[in-house]
């Protein structure tokens, strides 16, 4: 297993509103994400899912508390140490965040050119192998604007996997994709995680489908977090906001399951 574990200890994060008041996003939350497993972070809009990812990456700083990635407290480290820690991460952004002015090949080769001392030939071999695995061979000279939504995500995934990350973060990875493509993308995640063995954190609205991948589920609500050791256990929660969340996001699937139970 390659992955690193993550631990939040009493983390607080709030933002200043236009009227001068503060909006609390995370209110002294404590949880840990086990190494090498897949954890799904779910919750409604504006509940702080993407903020949680940015805090893990050190792109945003917590108001208080500690965030451990392996042995490193990301709230304390800065500069080169933080930069080195970030090389352990791979991130697939909501819109894939491919560089518009670069081709698919250049996008995927970018981390190898910038972060390794590999020769251009070695880079070419590695990039083309990755593109072949992700069924993007033949599209390497296209620009992101010429790709479909699913192809963009696959190119983003190829780029994120180049430095062999120990933690993969997926921010709403299937937004804007049709159900078939969504299923394919999730299968791809499961497959790559099996191959690389990274710790996987998925932020998603696409609850029923993503739960097939999850080892653990974290539900964010009004600054608090509820951690469930399995996707199935979420339906047995007696908390009213969780029941409401189950009803609105999982709909028929779990409700029919409940009737059977």
């Amino acid at each position, binding site marked *: 297993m390659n992955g690193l574990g993550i631990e939040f200890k009493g983390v607080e994060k709030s933002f*200043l509103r236009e*009227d001068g008041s503060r909006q609390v996003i995370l209110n002294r939350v404590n949880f840990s994400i086990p190494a090498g497993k897949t954890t799904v972070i779910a919750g409604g809009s504006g509940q702080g899912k993407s903020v949680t990812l940015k805090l893990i990456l050190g*792109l945003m700083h917590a108001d208080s508390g500690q965030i451990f990635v392996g042995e490193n407290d990301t709230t304390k480290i800065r500069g080169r140490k933080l930069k080195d820690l*970030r090389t352990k991460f791979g*991130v697939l*952004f909501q*819109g894939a*965040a491919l560089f518009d002015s670069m081709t698919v090949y250049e996008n995927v080769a970018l981390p190898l050119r910038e972060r390794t001392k590999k020769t251009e030939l070695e880079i070419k071999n590695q990039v083309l192998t990755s593109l072949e695995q992700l069924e993007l061979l033949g599209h390497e000279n296209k620009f992101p604007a010429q790709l479909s939504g699913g192809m963009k995500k696959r190119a983003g995934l190829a780029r994120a996997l180049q430095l062999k990350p120990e933690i993969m973060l997926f921010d709403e990875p299937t937004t804007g994709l049709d159900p078939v493509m969504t299923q394919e993308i999730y299968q791809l995640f499961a497959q790559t995680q099996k191959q690389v063995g990274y710790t996987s954190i998925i932020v998603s609205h696409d609850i029923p489908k993503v739960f097939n991948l999850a080892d653990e589920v974290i539900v964010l609500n009004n600054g608090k977090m509820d951690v469930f050791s399995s996707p199935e256990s979420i339906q047995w929660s007696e908390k009213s906001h969780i029941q409401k969340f189950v009803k609105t996001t999982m709909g028929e699937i779990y409700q029919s399951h409940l009737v059977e139970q």
Partner: protein
Amino acid sequence: MQQNTIIRLGSSGLSVVTDLGRMGVYLLQIIQGCFRRPFRFSELMRQLNFIGAGSLVVIFFTAASTGMVLGLQGYYSLHKFGAEGMLGSAVSLTLIMELGPVLTALMVAGRAGSAMCAELGIMRISEQVDALDCMAIDPFRYFISPKLLAALISVPLLTALFDVVGIAGGYVAGVHLMGVNPGSYFDGMQSSVTNHDIMLGTVKSFVFAVLIVWICTGRGYFVHVIRGAGFGARSVSKVTTQAVVLSSISVLIFDYLLTAILI
């Protein structure tokens, strides 16, 4: 009601101070990025082409028209005192010390500054800047600092071009159209323009280059945290307008300050 006004005022004040502090740190990061290795020579060349070569046409026409207007206006004023022979020195001093650096900077801010701001703003809202951070690639070294270096090379050269074309424009208007003696035009220029005047214009063009890149890229880079900018495409258009207005005003303010200090 009164309390709300005080809260809003305090909040606005805090926001301005935060914004200034953020921009100060940002300027230091751009300067640091110029010295980080590996240096991106290809990006510097791309920016030189965009900021420098791409601005040649607009600078040429602005300089030619400014020089010709100066030639005509100068002749009209000097003719009243029978001092047409001073036209060369009047046109050249005005262009080298003031109009050359200022108008070049305003043209570059409008043409290249707005594009730099929009490019960074779009990269920010589409998470491309975050993607660079996540790959541990320094965005300053990678694509912001080369813009500063390119502007520091391009703007003084464009200013020099502006001065030359402007003086030629003044010559055409003054000598060919109004009949000023060509010898006195160049002699007046040669006897009145000193190295100090050229240095003043050059220092201004360097300072204006820094101001344009700093303000224009900064507004785009911080599009997501600028108070009242909103979100998405509208926020980019809003900060792009802000960037051009702020950089133009800053150029005019610094023009006065530098003239007052260095003259």
